[in-house]
């Protein structure tokens, strides 16, 4: 270091003055930099002080244990009744699925979560991975329906709770995704007929509330079918979801497509790539990477929108939670019920959001300037 040109010729580094570093400086710069922000900070601290201690007291300190009876929970001054969640846990998670067979939907949940976790790892992004998913979904079907390998048959009208939510959203989004890519490409196609069809489909579906689509699927569909032929209620809801999700995701992807410079198309054309090669190798990989934030936004909102199936008589997670509240012995513990399923929904959505942030960062790393 002694012979270093820089150490002999340049001024030594000094620490910045204490007024710009350290916690006090941070507080001043971020919380009290203007009189208005100072006021807001004080107001927010006061509000938090009003809200957090009562919640903690209700949820933890005064809460009744998992062994508590409804009577104990109803005692004056009692806090949250987690015994309710404990008592109804299996009903909320699995609905009316036969009690003795509920290990099957549990296995399904774990299998799907495992598959999703594997899908998040880019080492598994290989051409054969969709096959793994197909096998996985077949196993899901076998476990849920049964009727083979000595499993008792369970009609899908008994399915409910978390497996239903997961099946509806995972299959819905997985099928809707490729459909949405085709729709987005169709909307930007040079062929007028294909473009018009895509635009008409997207605008029609986007212009209709999901609830009405579900109603149509459950009430109007059967009217168009010949007598004797009936499509299962769950399948109808699933189709309605796929149709709806595809239209929204198509618009997210179209946004990405529009952001790709014209030069990329020209370079691909100039090299002699065919339309599908150009789209599959050059345009879509870039467009979808750009579309991740709006796509995940759609994923998250559709995961939660599956709760709308309650209106056509399917019991997803929200439906089973609501149904569990109708037990006369345990009536009134709705706060605990909604808090519990809220946490489950939040865990899934938070994971999606976090993963998408990581994916975005990874995909952008290769394109860093």
């Amino acid at each position: 270091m002694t012979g270093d040109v820089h150490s002999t010729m340049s001024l030594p580094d000094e620490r910045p003055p204490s007024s710009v570093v350290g916690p006090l400086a941070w507080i001043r710069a971020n919380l009290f930099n203007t009189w208005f922000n100072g006021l807001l900070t004080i107001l927010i601290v006061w509000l938090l002080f009003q809200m957090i201690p009562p919640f903690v007291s209700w949820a933890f300190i005064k809460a009744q244990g998992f062994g508590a009876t409804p009577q104990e929970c109803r005692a004056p001054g009692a806090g949250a009744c987690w015994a309710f969640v404990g008592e109804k846990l299996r009903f909320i998670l699995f609905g009316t699925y036969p009690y003795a067979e509920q290990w099957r939907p549990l296995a399904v949940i774990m299998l799907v979560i495992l598959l999703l976790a594997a899908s998040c790892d880019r080492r598994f992004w290989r051409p054969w991975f969709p096959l793994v998913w197909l096998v996985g979904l077949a196993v899901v079907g076998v476990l849920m329906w049964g009727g083979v390998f000595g499993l008792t048959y369970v009609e899908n009208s008994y399915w409910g709770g978390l497996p239903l939510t997961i099946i509806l959203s995972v299959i819905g989004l997985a099928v809707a995704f490729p459909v949405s890519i085709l729709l987005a490409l169709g909307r930007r196609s040079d062929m007028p007929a294909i473009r018009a069809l895509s635009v008409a489909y997207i605008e029609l579906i986007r212009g209709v509330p999901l609830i009405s689509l579900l109603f149509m699927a459950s009430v109007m569909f059967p009217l168009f079918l010949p007598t004797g032929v009936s499509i299962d209620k769950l399948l109808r809801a699933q189709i309605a979801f796929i149709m709806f999700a595809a239209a929204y995701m198509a618009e997210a992807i179209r946004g990405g497509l529009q952001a790709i410079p014209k030069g990329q198309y020209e370079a691909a054309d100039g090299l002699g790539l065919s339309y599908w090669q150009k789209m599959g190798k050059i345009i879509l990989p870039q467009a979808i990477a750009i579309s991740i934030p709006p796509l995940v936004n759609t994923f998250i909102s559709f995961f939660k929108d599956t709760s709308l199936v309650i209106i056509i008589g399917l019991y997803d997670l929200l439906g089973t939670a609501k149904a569990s509240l109708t037990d006369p012995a345990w009536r009134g513990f709705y706060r605990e019920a909604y808090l519990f399923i809220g946490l489950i929904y939040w865990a899934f959505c938070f994971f999606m959001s976090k993963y998408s942030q990581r994916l975005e960062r990874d995909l952008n790393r290769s394109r860093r300037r």
Partner: protein
Amino acid sequence: MTATQTTAQPHAYAEGEDIIQCIGVHKWYGEFHVLKDINLSVRRGERIVICGPSGSGKSTLIRCLNRLEEHQKGRIVIDGIELTGNLKNIELVRREVGMVFQHFNLFPHLTVLENCTLAPIWVRKKPKAEAEEMAMTYLTRVQIAEQAKKYPGQLSGGQQQRVAIARSLCMNPKIMLFDEPTSALDPEMVKEVLDVMISLAESGMTMLCVTHEMGFAKSVADRVIFMDRGEIVEQNTPDEFFSNPRSDRTRLFLSQILNH
């Protein structure tokens, strides 16, 4: 490639054989008449520089040659294949015609090597190993082999343009089109790209370059074409073109770009 390095011998290939023929080509953008009655024949191995003021239609002309733009009247025949609405023909022509763009247009999500191997693998159906070997040969030739694993965004403009040239060469094209290849580059990077183009010209490649680099035109071109307002105003050997321009428009253009 070294075998064909017969410097400045334009007729080293089968004489009189036209690889590009434009006969009475017209093009309109809406009402605007961009190309007016273009008649142009290019022999195999010929090096042509197209110059002219901006908006004269020179980029449009070479973009018509691989059908990035559609002409509305007249005939364009590339190596015996006429460019019409026939998609099969268009794809055939594009395989044989490489194009280098002003803004490089590398694929940012692929590495330099992947940029070069993509079309040979998918269009020429070459095995991956063979495509990579060939890509490395061309990347070495444009002196950028050591950057093969990097992404385009990590390279300078001059490096990117050299990769773009290598990417086109990997398709073994019969014709190379250059659309203002040095116009978007910082001045200190122009030379490295021109050097690559000069070595390519020396190897006997049929080249059409839209460029303002008159030094390149003087030293490399067999023929200089001057375009103005959608017409070919004048074409001649570089010596004649620069020392003895025939039309007033050419003289005006040359005085503007040479005396500044």
